[in-house]
C-alpha cells in the first residue's frame, strides 16, 4: 500500500481500537464505579472537594447543573481577561511581549473559554508564557472538561428511568480533568518530549545559520500545551503555525499521536454513552453515521490534494507530492488532507497545513464538516450536537410512520422539539448573517474607521482579504463557520486581528457555545422527568441502520438547504473556474 495512505489508515484504526476500551472506562468514571485511577486520584479529589466546600453527593437538577456550569465559565472568563490584558508586567515573559488590546483579549479569552481557539494573535509575539500556561492552557483543560461534564449530565438523563436528579456537576467536571484529560495529556506530552518538542521556560534563542544569517528561534513550554490542545479538541497552537510548526509537531510519529489524541475522545464519548446508558447498539449506530459522514468528506479531499494544483501543472513542473503550498514535507499531502477534515468534523481546529492554500474541493469539505459540526464533533459537545439531530430524526421518523415520537422510552413533545429546532437553525443563522455583513462591507469597500485598519493603515474593508474573488469570499465564510462551530481553524490569510473581526466573531462564539450546551441539557433534563414507556411493537426503533440513515438524511437536508447557496458562491465557483 502507498506509505502515505497506510499512515492515515493506521491512524484511524488505532483510534477506534483505543476508543472502545476508553469509552468503557469513561462510563465507569461517570457512574462512580471503581477504576484503577482511584488509587492515584481518589484521595486528592476528596481533598480538593473538601477545600472547595463541595458536597459531591448532592444531586443536581438540569437547571442547577447549568447554573454551576455558567458560573464557572464567568469566573474563568474574568481570569483570562486579567492575564491577557496584563501579561506585559506579569511574570514569565522573557520575550517582552506586550499586553493585548481589549478587543483582542476579548476575542482570545472567549475563544479559549468556548473551546474554539480562533487565535487572532500569533503565539510567538502575542502572548507571554504566563498567559500561555495560566490562561490559555488552563482554559483548554476546563473548557474540554465543561463539554465532557455536560455530556455526562445528558448521559445520566437518558437512562431508562424517571428522575430529576442528574448527578453532581462539579463531580463530573473535576473527574473529567483528573481521570480523563490529565492522564492522557501526561502520556502524550511525554511522547512529544522524546520526539523533540521543547518544554522550556527560556525565551527566544539566537542562532547563526550555516549560511551565516542571524536567526531567532522561539521556544517555550510547548509539550505540555500541545497535549491538551489535542486531547481537549481545543486546537489553539503554541506557535502561529500551529501543528505545522516543526517544534510543535516535529515528526510523522508526533503527527500520528496528535491525530489520534484529537479523535480519541470524540470517538470514546459515543461508546461511553453506549456503556453508560446500556445502549451499546445505539452507540454503534451513532458512530456509523458519524463515520459515514467523515469518510464522504475525507476521501475526495485526499484525492484533490494528491492530485495537486492544475494551474501549477500547466507551468510544466512535477507535482510528485501533490499540492504542496502551505504543507510540510514530513507529513505529505495525504496526512495533511486527512488532518484537515478530522480537525473540522471534530471541533479541534488545529492545522498541520495551511487551509487557505488547499484545493477548492478540500475547502468545501472542511466547511461542510464545520457546518454539520457533529460528525464526531468536539469533546462532549459533539455528542450534544448529534443528540439534537437525533431528536429531530425521531420526530420526523415518528411522523412518517404515524407514531408518537419516542426516544429511549420517553415521549418527545412540542417543548423539546422547539428547543431542538432553535439550536439546529441558530448555527446557520450565525454563519450566514455574519458572512453576509462582512461580504457586504468588503464588496462595497466600506470605510471601516476605528473598526479596521490594514497593515498600511487604510480603513477599506476589502483590505482584510488575502485573496481576491471567490476565494476571498470563502475566507470570510470560513471565519464565521469556524467561529460558530467553535472550531478555531481558519483561512488564515484573513486579517482578523482588528476590532471588527475580534468583536463580531467573539459574539458568535459565545452564542454558538452556550446555546448548544444549554439546549441539549435542557431537552435531556425534560425527557428524564417523563414517564418511562417500555418498548412495544408501536415503538420506533432507534438502534437500527434505518434510523441511522434517517439521522444522516436529516443532517444532510439541513446542511444542504441552509448552506448550499453560500458554498456555491465560494468553493464551488472557484472549482468551476479552475476546471
Amino acid at each position, binding site marked *: 500500500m502507498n506509505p502515505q495512505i497506510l499512515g492515515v489508515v493506521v491512524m484511524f484504526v488505532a483510534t477506534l481500537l483505543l476508543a472502545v476500551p476508553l469509552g468503557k472506562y469513561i462510563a465507569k468514571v461517570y457512574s462512580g464505579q471503581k477504576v484503577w485511577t482511584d488509587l492515584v486520584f481518589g484521595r486528592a479529589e476528596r481533598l480538593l472537594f473538601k477545600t472547595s466546600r463541595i458536597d459531591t453527593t448532592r444531586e443536581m437538577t438540569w437547571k442547577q447543573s447549568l*447554573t454551576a456550569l455558567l458560573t464557572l465559565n464567568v469566573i474563568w472568563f474574568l481570569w483570562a481577561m486579567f492575564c491577557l490584558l496584563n501579561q506585559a508586567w506579569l511574570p514569565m515573559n522573557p520575550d517582552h511581549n506586550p499586553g493585548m488590546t481589549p478587543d483582542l483579549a476579548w476575542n482570545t479569552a472567549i475563544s479559549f473559554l468556548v473551546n474554539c481557539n480562533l487565535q487572532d494573535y500569533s503565539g510567538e509575539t502575542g502572548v507571554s508564557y504566563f498567559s500561555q500556561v495560566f490562561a490559555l492552557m488552563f482554559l483548554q483543560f476546563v473548557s474540554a472538561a465543561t463539554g465532557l461534564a455536560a455530556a455526562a449530565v445528558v448521559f445520566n438523563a437518558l437512562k431508562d428511568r424517571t428522575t430529576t436528579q442528574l448527578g453532581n456537576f462539579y463531580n463530573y467536571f473535576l473527574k473529567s480533568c483528573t481521570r480523563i484529560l490529565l492522564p492522557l495529556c501526561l502520556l502524550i506530552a511525554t511522547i512529544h518530549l522524546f520526539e523533540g518538542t521543547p518544554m522550556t521556560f527560556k525565551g527566544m534563542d539566537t542562532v547563526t545559520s550555516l549560511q551565516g544569517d542571524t536567526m531567532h528561534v522561539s521556544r517555550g513550554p510547548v509539550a505540555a500545551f500541545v497535549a491538551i490542545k489535542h486531547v481537549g479538541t481545543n486546537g489553539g497552537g503554541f506557535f502561529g503555525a500551529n501543528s505545522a510548526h516543526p517544534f510543535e509537531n516535529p515528526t510523522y510519529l508526533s503527527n500520528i499521536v496528535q491525530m489520534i489524541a484529537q479523535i480519541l475522545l470524540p470517538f470514546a464519548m459515543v461508546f461511553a454513552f453506549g456503556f453508560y446508558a446500556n445502549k451499546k447498539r445505539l452507540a454503534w449506530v451513532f458512530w456509523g453515521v458519524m463515520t459515514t459522514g467523515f469518510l464522504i468528506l475525507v476521501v475526495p479531499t485526499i484525492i484533490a490534494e494528491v492530485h495537486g494544483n492544475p494551474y501549477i501543472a500547466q507551468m510544466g513542473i512535477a507535482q510528485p507530492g501533490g499540492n504542496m503550498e502551505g504543507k510540510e514535507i514530513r507529513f505529505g499531502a495525504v496526512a495533511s488532507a486527512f488532518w484537515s477534515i478530522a480537525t473540522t468534523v471534530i471541533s479541534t481546529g488545529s492545522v498541520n497545513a495551511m487551509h487557505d492554500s488547499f484545493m477548492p474541493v478540500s475547502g468545501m469539505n472542511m466547511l461542510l464538516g464545520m457546518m454539520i459540526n457533529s460528525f464526531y464533533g468536539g469533546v462532549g459537545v459533539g455528542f450534544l450536537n448529534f443528540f439534537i439531530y437525533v431528536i429531530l430524526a425521531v420526530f420526523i421518523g415518528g411522523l412518517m410512520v404515524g407514531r408518537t415520537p419516542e426516544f429511549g422510552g420517553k415521549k418527545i413533545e412540542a417543548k423539546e422539539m422547539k428547543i431542538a429546532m432553535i439550536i439546529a437553525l441558530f448555527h446557520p443563522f450565525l454563519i450566514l448573517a455574519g458572512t453576509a455583513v462582512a461580504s457586504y462591507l468588503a464588496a462595497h469597500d466600506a470605510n471601516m474607521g476605528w473598526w479596521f485598519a490594514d497593515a498600511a493603515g487604510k480603513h477599506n474593508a476589502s483590505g482584510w482579504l488575502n485573496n481576491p474573488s471567490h476565494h476571498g469570499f470563502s475566507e470570510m465564510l470560513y471565519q464565521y463557520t469556524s467561529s460558530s462551530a467553535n472550531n478555531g481553524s481558519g483561512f488564515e490569510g484573513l486579517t482578523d486581528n482588528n476590532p471588527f473581526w475580534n468583536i463580531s466573531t467573539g459574539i458568535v462564539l459565545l452564542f454558538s457555545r452556550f446555546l448548544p450546551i444549554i439546549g441539549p441539557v435542557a431537552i435531556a433534563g425534560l425527557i428524564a422527568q417523563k414517564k418511562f414507556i417500555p418498548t412495544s411493537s408501536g415503538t420506533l426503533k432507534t438502534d437500527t441502520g434505518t434510523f441511522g440513515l434517517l439521522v444522516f438524511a436529516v443532517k444532510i437536508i439541513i446542511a444542504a438547504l441552509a448552506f448550499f447557496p453560500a458554498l456555491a458562491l465560494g468553493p464551488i465557483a*472557484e472549482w468551476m473556474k479552475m476546471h
Partner: protein
Amino acid sequence: MKKEIIPSILLSFICIILLSGIYPAIVWGIAQITPNKGEGIVIKEKGGRHFYENIGQNFSDDKYFWSRPSAVNYNAAGSGGSNKGPDNPEYLLLVQARIDSFMTHNPGVNRKDIPSDMVTASGSGLDPHISVEGAMVQVKRIAKVRSLDENRVSELVRAHIDAPMYGMGPKRINVLTLNLALDNIIAH
C-alpha cells in the same frame, strides 16, 4: 447562582494550581530526563555554533542545497504560510518567477524534473525538509559549484533520505544535515 459562586471560585483556584502549576511542572521534570532536556534537538558544531535540527534554515547560496521557499523567510521568531489560494493570480506569478529563478541557477535541468515543493512555501515557513526529487534536481549544480563528482553528491543525497517510519508517511531529506555533510566532504 449565588449558592454556586463561592464553591466555583475555590474550585477554579484549585484547578489553576493543578492544571497550570503541577501538570506543566511534571512535564518539565520528565523533560529533564529526555535526551534533549526539553530544549529541542540541538546540533552542536565544533566551532561552538549550534543549530536546531527541526528548524529549517534559509539556504540561497548556490553551494548549498536550497530549502523550500518560506513565507517568513526562515525567521523562527515567527511562523506561518503564505495563505495564498490556489487560483490567486498574484501567487501564480510568484510561483512562475520561482521556477524561472530555479532554472537560471540550475542550468541544464529539465523543467518537468522540478518538484513543486521547491517552488511552494511550506505551512510553517520553517520546513526543515525537502523531497528526494527536490534534492536530486540540485545535484548537478552542487557538483559543479563544489567541483565534486555528480555521483558522489547523489550518493550523499541517497544516504540522507529519511525513510518512511514503519512504512508510513513520505520520504524526506533534512536540508541542514545534508548541507553539514556536504561541508564535511570539503574539509576532508
